[in-house]
C-alpha cells in the first residue's frame, strides 16, 4: 500500500511542480539564455558557462528589471501588482462581507420567494462572463468607471457574490440557531448576536470563500483587458501585453513577475489552510 502511494504521489508532484521549477529557472536566465533552443536547467554562479551542458549563468537581473518600466509601458510591474492587490483584496473583502450578510439573511429569516432569489443569485454564474463584456463596458462608460480600480472591484464583487452567498449560506445553515437565540435571551440584539456569535464561528467559511473570491479576481483577464488601457491594468493583462513587445518577449521578466504574482495567493492559502481543510469537509461529518 505504501509503495502504491509513492507511485502516485511522485509523478503527481513532478507534474505539478515542473512548470513552477521551469518558471523559477527561466526567471534567473538572461534573455538570450531563455530563448536558446538548447534547454539549460541548472543555475550556475559562473559568468560564462560552456555551451552543451545543462548549466546556465544565473542572475537576478530579471527581478531588478521588474522595478523599472519596460519599454513601451508607462509603469513598472510593481504598479500593476499594486493594482491587482488593491482590486483583488477589496473585491474579496466586499464579496465576503456582502455574501456573509446576505447568506445570514437567507439562512435565518423568512424571505418571500427565498428559493427563487437564491436561484437568481446562482443564475448570474450561468452566463460566460465574457458574453456581457460589451453591455458592461457601455454601462461603465456612462458612469466613468472604465480605467478605475472601482470599476473592476465592483465587477469582481458582482461576479463573486453568488459564490460567496451560496458558500456562506451552507456554513451558516449548519450553525444551530440556538446560539443566536441564547444571545438574544442573554440580552443582546439580533445584530449583536450576529457579530458576537455568528461571525466568529463563520471564520472557516469566510476563509474558504475569501480564497475562492481572491483567486478568481486575481486571475481574471477578460474584463480587466476590456475595461482598461492604462491606470487600473492588472498583472495578467500587463503580461499578455508584453507579448507584443518589439524587442522580443522578455521571458525572464515574465517568469520573475509570474512567480511574484503567484506568491500572495500561495501565502494567503497557506495562512488559511487549516480553515480550508475544515471547510472542505464541513458538514460531511454529522454528529
Amino acid at each position, binding site marked *: 500500500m505504501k509503495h502504491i502511494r509513492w507511485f502516485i504521489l511522485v509523478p503527481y508532484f513532478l507534474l505539478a511542480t515542473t512548470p513552477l521549477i521551469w518558471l523559477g529557472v527561466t526567471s534567473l536566465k538572461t534573455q538570450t539564455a531563455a530563448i536558446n533552443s538548447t534547454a539549460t536547467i541548472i543555475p550556475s554562479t559562473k559568468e560564462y558557462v560552456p555551451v552543451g551542458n545543462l548549466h546556465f549563468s544565473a542572475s537576478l537581473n530579471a527581478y531588478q528589471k521588474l522595478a523599472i518600466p519596460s519599454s513601451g509601458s508607462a509603469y513598472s510591474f510593481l504598479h500593476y501588482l499594486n493594482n491587482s492587490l488593491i482590486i483583488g483584496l477589496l473585491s474579496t473583502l466586499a464579496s465576503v462581507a456582502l455574501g456573509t450578510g446576505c447568506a445570514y439573511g437567507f439562512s435565518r429569516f423568512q424571505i418571500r420567494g427565498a428559493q427563487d432569489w437564491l436561484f437568481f443569485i446562482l443564475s448570474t454564474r450561468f452566463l460566460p462572463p465574457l458574453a456581457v463584456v460589451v453591455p458592461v463596458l457601455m454601462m461603465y462608460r456612462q458612469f466613468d468607471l472604465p480605467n478605475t480600480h472601482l470599476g473592476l472591484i465592483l465587477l469582481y464583487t458582482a461576479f463573486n457574490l453568488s459564490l460567496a452567498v451560496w458558500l456562506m449560506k451552507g456554513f451558516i445553515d449548519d450553525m*444551530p440557531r440556538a*446560539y443566536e*437565540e441564547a444571545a438574544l435571551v442573554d440580552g443582546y440584539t439580533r445584530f449583536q448576536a450576529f457579530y458576537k456569535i455568528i461571525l466568529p464561528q463563520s471564520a472557516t467559511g469566510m476563509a474558504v470563500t475569501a480564497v475562492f473570491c481572491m483567486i478568481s479576481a486575481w486571475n481574471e483577464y477578460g474584463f480587466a483587458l476590456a475595461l482598461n488601457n492604462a491606470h487600473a491594468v492588472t498583472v495578467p493583462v500587463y503580461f499578455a501585453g508584453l507579448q507584443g513587445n518589439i524587442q522580443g518577449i522578455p521571458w525572464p521578466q515574465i517568469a520573475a513577475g509570474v512567480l511574484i504574482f503567484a506568491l500572495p495567493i500561495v501565502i494567503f492559502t497557506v495562512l488559511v489552510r487549516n480553515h480550508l481543510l475544515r471547510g472542505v469537509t464541513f458538514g460531511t461529518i454529522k454528529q
Partner: protein
Amino acid sequence: MPFLQLKNLHKTYPDGTHAVRGIDLDVQEGEFIVLLGPSGCGKTTTLRMIAGLEMPTDGQITLAKKEITHHPASKRDIGFVFQFYALYPHMTVHQNIAFPLENLGQCKQEMQTTLLRVSKSLGIEHLLDRHPGQLSGGDQQRVSLARAMVRQPDIYLMDEPLGTLDADHRLALREFIRSQQLALGVTAIYVTHDQEEAMSLADRIVVMESGHIRQTGTPSEIYHYPADLFVANFVGSPGMNLIEGKISSQEQGLFKASSAEIAIPSLAYTGPLTLGIRPEFIYPTDKGISARVSIIEYHGSHHDIHLDTPMGNLTMRTPLSVTLSPKDNIQIAFKQNEIRLFAPKTGHAIL
C-alpha cells in the same frame, strides 16, 4: 395579578402549522410550572413565545405587570436553558457565563463575584478556562444553567434541559434545579415530555396536547384526577387502565364491561362510558373478576402484572410480597374510590 399571564395565545407557523391553539395560563411568582406533553404538542412553542424567540400570532403575554407580547427576547428579563446547551463554542466557560453580564454595565469586580458564586453553586468553578467542546454533556448543561442564572432574571425558562443527559447527571441536576429555584424563590417554566421529571419538579403541571392545554394542576391532581382520557393515558407509566363499558339505567352503581361487573360509586348517569383505574389500585382478591396472568415485569420495588381479562388487557401493580407466575388464573378487584369515569366522545372526566 399573576406574575406571568398567557391569554388566548396562538401560534401559526408560516407553513400553516397551528402549533398553539389558544393557551390561557396564570403563573404566580415563585411557582415552578412544568409544561408536559408528547412531542409536537406545542409546549416548546409556548415556552419560546414566553421567551420572545417566537412571536405569537394572537393573544397576549404579561410578565411582571408588563405587557411583553411583542417585545424582542433581548428586552425581556429571562434566563433560558436550551436542550442542546447552546454554549458559544468559540468562548471559554468563563466567557460564556459572563456573556449575559457584559452588556449590563456592571464593573469587572462585581461581574467576577457573581460569576464565581454561580459557578461554585453548580460545581463548575474548576472548568472556567475550558471550552464547551471539552466538557461532558452534564457539565455543558451546568454551564448553560449558570449562564441563565447569572443575570438573576425574572423568570427561568427551560426547554427539556435534562433530555440528553445520562441518568445520574439527570437526577443530580434535577435536584439542583429544584433546590435553586426554591432557594431563590424564582419563577420557572420547564418543558419536558418526561412525566417523572414533571412530577418530581412541578408545583403545577400543565398537560398539553395538539396545541391545547388538557389539564392544569398539582402533580397529585394530575395523577389522581386526570381531566380527560388523554391525561389519564399519558400520565403514569404505564398509564391508567381504560375499560370501555356502560352503566345501564336499572343498575346504578354497577359498571358493566362485557361479562364483568364492577361496583362503582353511585352516579346519576346512564349509558356508555370509559372506566379508568391506575395499576396500583387493582389488587388480587379471593372473589372478583377472573383474570389470567400473561407477563410479569419486575421493577425492583414492585411488579407490574399484565393480565388478560374479559374486559381486555389490564396492568396491575403489586408489592413484591405478592407472588404470581405467568398463566396463573386469579381474581382481581378495583379500589372503589380510585375508580375514574370518563364520558364517551369528549373523554372528559365525570368522576
